[in-house]
């Protein structure tokens, strides 16, 4: 989806712009009012923290926040919490196998869907969309105006698929996402403006489900991220789990029920929070109390803290710094309230961390400041955030080895071109597989996209020169383009995310949402299908021309007829679904043909061979 919803009339009043912290455990919305950022009351009892929990009921109604939390024990599989951990993830990802009571259903492209009461399985994007919708509604009633534009924060460590998913969730909720902002950068912004600080700062952000460490330099109003690191699967939830595992072990429960897990997780969370102020607490479970001391708890979470320490050292190393260079450490995330965490941070950096802004609110407040800066022309000169790409981007080369194209911590936006050549004489296609991660082997990295560069002019092996250009925008989102250097012909390459929702699915969700103009969507869907039809037709004709000899005369004329029919239909039909069905029908009809072409091409369908050397 290339943003038909982003098209907006610049003269249209924009209402209130907001900053949103879409957190693993809690979500917040904040806005700058009279020059100061404030958090909006978003839940029962005027709480500013909205628990990131969504309950789906059998009658199709949806509850968000505390009212959903109340359903956790009673309906654990219909009540989704920590959904952020599932953003942009597939069923195959390790995390989905962690403690959790959900019933997963595979969606298209392996995307995680939760089977919940009241109808269709929901994706992580839809669940997040519900949270955002609630935040939007509450902000609208608080400010008595429309809220249509937002800055949404993401962990610095989020990869491309996770960022895409977050942006999609914003769109589903009817928000134009002005910018995806890295959470630590948002926190620094909240602190930096208050204190007018200069120098090197570390932001240690331990939230419910993610850990981020960022090293930033503040010079003359420019917040420059020097390096980021962290773990997108480590947070306060893991502290809760550490307690749960001890309780289960102590009670000799090896196969806990979903209800037991949900009850225990909630009790563990309460116990953890109590241990912040007291040295002892008890955790009630099935009629008996389980005693936990702070010393016990501290020792159980030491391995988790040590993992954060390793990330800190790596981020410092990437920035070419040592702990002594850091002028201040900012604490972010509710989990930094845990005394053992503060002690650990103080030891690691050799100085007491800063914590005078509420660590739960600091990210949302920073996001609100950024939203204000982006939309308020008077404030444009005050400050600028320069972010970096958190994970290296690379390509698969021979033998499943990753060739890094853009290394982690490069400032964004950035672009990088890479020249490819062919591997076989007359080869007319090259497979491009884009991955994100730091490991050597493709299998250890996150697969972002696969596509095929086709229609290369026939040339001896190694003679073709195809320049593939990767561009990362200021949100950290990737686009890919390709150009044949010999002919100068640009090739249109559609990159489908390997994980996440397909554009069609998002369109379908948008259709379901009454907040969107029906006609726009219909029109857009039709245009998309027309583009798709043109692509399919051009492919089909090309294949008929080059590989038509693989078909019998009867087959060929039947296939040609089908192609002509689709062409005629594409020119006149006004209903995208009819066109889509016709495209699918042609695809199905072509399957045996495609198989024969594949067999013929098997010797040439090698992985793209880099114009590499030695």
């Amino acid at each position, binding site marked *: 989806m290339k943003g038909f919803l982003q098209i907006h009339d610049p003269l249209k009043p924009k209402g209130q712009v907001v900053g949103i912290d879409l957190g693993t455990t809690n979500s917040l919305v904040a806005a700058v009012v009279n020059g100061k950022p404030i958090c909006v009351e978003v839940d029962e009892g005027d709480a500013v923290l909205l628990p990131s929990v969504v309950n789906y009921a059998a009658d199709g109604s949806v509850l968000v926040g505390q009212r959903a939390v109340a359903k956790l024990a009673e309906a654990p599989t219909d009540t989704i919490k920590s959904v952020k951990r599932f953003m942009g993830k597939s069923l195959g990802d390790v995390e989905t196998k962690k403690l959790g009571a959900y019933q997963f259903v595979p969606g298209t492209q392996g995307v995680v869907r939760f089977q919940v009461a009241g109808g269709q399985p929901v994706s992580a994007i839809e669940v997040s969309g519900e949270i955002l919708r609630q935040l939007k509604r509450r902000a609208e009633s608080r400010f008595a105006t429309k809220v249509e534009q937002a800055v949404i924060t993401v962990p610095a460590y989020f990869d491309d698929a996770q960022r895409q998913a977050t942006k999609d969730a914003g769109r589903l909720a009817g928000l134009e996402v002005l910018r995806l902002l890295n959470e630590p950068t948002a926190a620094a912004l909240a602190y930096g403006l208050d204190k007018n600080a200069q120098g090197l700062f570390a932001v240690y952000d331990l939230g419910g489900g993610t850990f981020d460490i960022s090293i930033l330099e503040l010079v003359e109003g420019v917040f420059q991220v020097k390096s980021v690191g962290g773990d997108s699967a480590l947070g306060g939830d893991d502290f809760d789990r550490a307690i749960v595992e001890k309780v289960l072990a102590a009670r000799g429960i090896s196969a806990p029920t979903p209800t037991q897990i949900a009850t225990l997780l909630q009790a563990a969370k309460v116990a953890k929070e109590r241990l912040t102020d007291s040295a002892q607490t008890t955790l009630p479970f099935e009629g008996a109390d389980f005693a936990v001391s702070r010393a016990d708890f501290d020792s159980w979470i030491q391995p988790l803290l040590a993992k954060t320490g390793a990330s800190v050292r790596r981020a410092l190393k990437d920035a070419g710094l040592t702990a002594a260079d850091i002028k201040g450490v900012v604490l972010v995330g509710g989990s930094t309230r845990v005394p053992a965490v503060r002690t650990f941070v103080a030891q690691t950096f050799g100085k007491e961390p800063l914590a005078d802004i509420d660590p739960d609110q600091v990210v949302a407040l920073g996001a609100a400041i950024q939203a204000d800066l982006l939309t308020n022309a008077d404030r444009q000169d005050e400050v600028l955030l320069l972010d970096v790409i958190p994970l290296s981007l690379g390509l698969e080369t021979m033998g499943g080895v990753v060739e890094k194209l853009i290394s982690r911590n490069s400032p964004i936006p950035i672009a990088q071109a890479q020249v490819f050549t062919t591997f076989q004489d007359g080869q007319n296609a090259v497979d491009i597989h884009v991955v994100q991660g730091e490991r050597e082997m493709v299998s250890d990295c996150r697969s972002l996209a696969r596509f095929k560069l086709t229609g290369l002019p026939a040339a001896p092996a190694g003679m073709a020169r195809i320049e593939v250009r990767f561009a990362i925008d*200021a949100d950290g989102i990737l686009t890919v383009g390709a150009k044949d250097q010999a002919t100068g012909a640009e090739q249109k390459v559609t990159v489908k995310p390997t994980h996440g929702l397909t554009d069609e699915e998002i369109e379908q969700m948008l259709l379901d949402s009454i907040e969107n103009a029906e006609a726009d969507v219909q029109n857009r869907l039709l245009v998309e299908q027309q583009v798709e039809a043109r692509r399919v037709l051009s492919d089909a004709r090309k294949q008929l021309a080059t590989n038509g000899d693989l078909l019998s005369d009867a087959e060929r004329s039947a296939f040609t007829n089908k192609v002509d029919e689709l062409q005629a239909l594409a020119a006149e039909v006004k209903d995208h679904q009819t066109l889509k069905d016709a495209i699918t029908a042609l695809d199905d009809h072509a399957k045996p043909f495609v198989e024969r072409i594949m067999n013929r091409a098997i010797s040439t369908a090698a992985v793209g061979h880099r114009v590499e050397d030695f």
Partner: protein
Amino acid sequence: MTHFDVFGLPPSVDLDVRALEQQVRDLSMQFHPDRAAHGDARERRIALEKTTAVNDAFKVLKDPVRRAFYLLKLKGIDLENDASAAAAKMPMAFLEEVMERREKLEGALRKKDLEAARAMAAEVVELKDAAFATAVNALKADDTALAAHQLGRVKYFTRFLEEVEAFEEETLS
């Protein structure tokens, strides 16, 4: 537009990286997409393109080795992207020497002999530094052929060191 043009600088091996950083900040302040967030699509696209150019240029120019390869590319020899150009610049004797070193390294890797690999790496670091110093002087003296030859050596040596580093990381983790 060359990476040097982005900063209004003449092509040169010597650059003040601190001053360059300051320029990146100033240019970003002016052209970053966030500056154009309230502008129209065209303004936003130009902002994105300009900032991308600044970041791309800085990435290459801040690192003396990449800067040298880039200067050579401006003189018509692209060692980073063109294998045949690279190989053509290297004398046979050097290629043989590389093969020999590589075989020795592979032997050490097979035996998981970290000490031997490190000793070889130390030797290669010295060779690389020497080759790079020669290349820089050649670029200053506008001796493109010598610069290409020496940077070709730097490239081989760098690859060698990367392999040792990957091996070290693997062994230590």
